[in-house]
């Protein structure tokens, strides 16, 4: 590969440009429309994007720490992602709106698969029912009502095809580049065993356990009513935190980070790491020495807890998704639920009013 193409920005721009060209050729137009070429270009764009992924985020891993279930997850993800994007392309470029609607149904199904991977079975079910079941069907009804024979303005013409695809793909490229720019450096991710190209640091199961225990003591310290109890838990939390940072496998990571400190992103990451580390040391302990500092100490523990939550990153979602989601909706988001219900009612009334007025008007 030529060195110029190794730059992630170049790769992204190239992928977007190929996508623009492909979609431009595929979009229905009276003159310039070349389906085969368009498909080829879109595939080429996907290929370039694949190179970008491979270069930046490593080859698809088939096993992580011997955990075979992740393989199934990876395969399903790529399947659903490819389905969503592919059928999305079909929807956008298909001349016949009825076929477009069917493609949209497949997009929905694919995204629903992604929802499942993201541990959202209830939302998946709701989306399938609402979109695939209701919206697509009613739109097909409308399409049948307004059936057009032969070429027509709305199906065989597009508004600003080049400019529109440029804007769209430019937007996508920009977002992907932003994501890339905000994710941690590859130098860190490549040698650290499991690949976690994410804002959160790579954590082993043991790390996570240490952090979780520290967090648990923090929570209990915050809940504590007496000074003694509070102090006890705070010291324990501090201890686990200390253990986390002094664990042997942390040091090489820190060294690597320090070695690449010239990179501003690494510097930022390092800074965060250091701040957390310093808060695990003497300042908190000195505060804990005297009961008169209780308010300050409690504030410090709270800040520590919040920091730890961010630092720990990927949590675990509860297994009883529907029950927990329902509890959340009807406790924390009750007002929003009511508003959404009202909105639905108003929209129903509005839709009926609009449809009726038209009849009266005629």
């Amino acid at each position: 590969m030529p060195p110029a193409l190794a730059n992630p920005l170049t790769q992204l721009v190239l992928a977007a440009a190929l996508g623009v060209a492909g979609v431009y050729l595929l979009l229905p137009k009276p003159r310039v429309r070349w389906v085969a070429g368009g498909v080829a270009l879109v595939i080429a764009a996907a290929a370039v994007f694949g190179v970008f992924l491979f270069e930046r985020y490593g080859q698809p891993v088939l096993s992580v720490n011997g955990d075979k279930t992740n393989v199934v997850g990876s395969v399903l993800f790529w399947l659903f992602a490819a389905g969503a994007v592919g059928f999305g392309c079909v929807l956008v470029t298909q001349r016949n709106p009825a076929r477009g609607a069917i493609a949209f149904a497949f997009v929905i199904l694919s995204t629903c698969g992604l929802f499942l991977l993201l541990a959202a079975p209830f939302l998946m079910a709701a989306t399938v029912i609402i979109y695939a079941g209701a919206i697509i069907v009613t739109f097909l009804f409308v399409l049948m009502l307004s059936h057009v024979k032969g070429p027509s303005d709305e199906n065989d013409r597009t508004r600003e095809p080049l400019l529109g695809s440029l804007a769209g793909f430019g937007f996508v490229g920009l977002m992907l580049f932003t994501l890339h720019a905000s994710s941690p450096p590859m130098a860190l991710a490549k040698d650290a065993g499991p690949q976690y190209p994410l804002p959160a640091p790579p954590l082993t199961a043991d790390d996570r356990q240490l952090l979780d225990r520290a967090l648990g003591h923090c929570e209990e310290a915050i809940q504590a009513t007496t000074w003694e109890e509070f102090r006890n838990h705070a010291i324990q939390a501090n201890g686990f935190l200390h253990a986390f940072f002094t664990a042997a496998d942390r040091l090489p990571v820190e060294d690597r980070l320090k070695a690449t400190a010239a990179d501003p992103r690494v510097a930022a990451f390092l800074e965060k790491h250091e701040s957390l580390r310093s808060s695990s040391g003497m300042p908190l302990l000195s505060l804990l020495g005297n009961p008169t500092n209780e308010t300050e100490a409690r504030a410090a523990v709270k800040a520590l807890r919040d920091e730890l939550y961010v630092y720990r990153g990927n949590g675990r979602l509860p297994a009883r998704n529907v029950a927990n989601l329902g509890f959340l909706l009807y406790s924390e988001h009750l007002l929003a639920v009511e508003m959404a219900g009202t909105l639905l009612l108003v929209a129903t009334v509005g839709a009926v009013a609009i449809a009726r007025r038209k009849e009266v008007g005629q």
Partner: protein
Amino acid sequence: MISLWHFLGVGAILFGLGLVGFLTRRNLITMFLSAEMMLQGVVINLLAFGSHHGSLGGQAFGLFIVTVAACEAGLALALFLMLYKRGRSLDSGDWQTVREVGVPPAVDTVPLPAPPPDDHPTLPVPGRLPEQAEVRFQEVTRA
């Protein structure tokens, strides 16, 4: 290993494709479906972040988005029906009368391709008709 980044990427691509569809396609229904696809990309984003932080908030948000999308679908349907009855067309370019006074309308200049030839099966002529019968047949067809 599938990470947050992957999901965000898929969401972004879906969003962008929907954007392209919304900006370029002229059929109101296709435009609407593209907009829905953009919403799907956003929902994926929310769910990915929710999963990453171990919070159900993302899913709650996703539910609200689905609700709003449903409202939108109902209203859009009613509006499309009304617009179709008025203009006998689902072309969004037919509704450009809200432009400023004095701005010329956007008119399509490139002619549409000819409709594809009618490929219904046709029967061969079975044979010569008698004179009188032919005349009557012509009258009937003319009527």
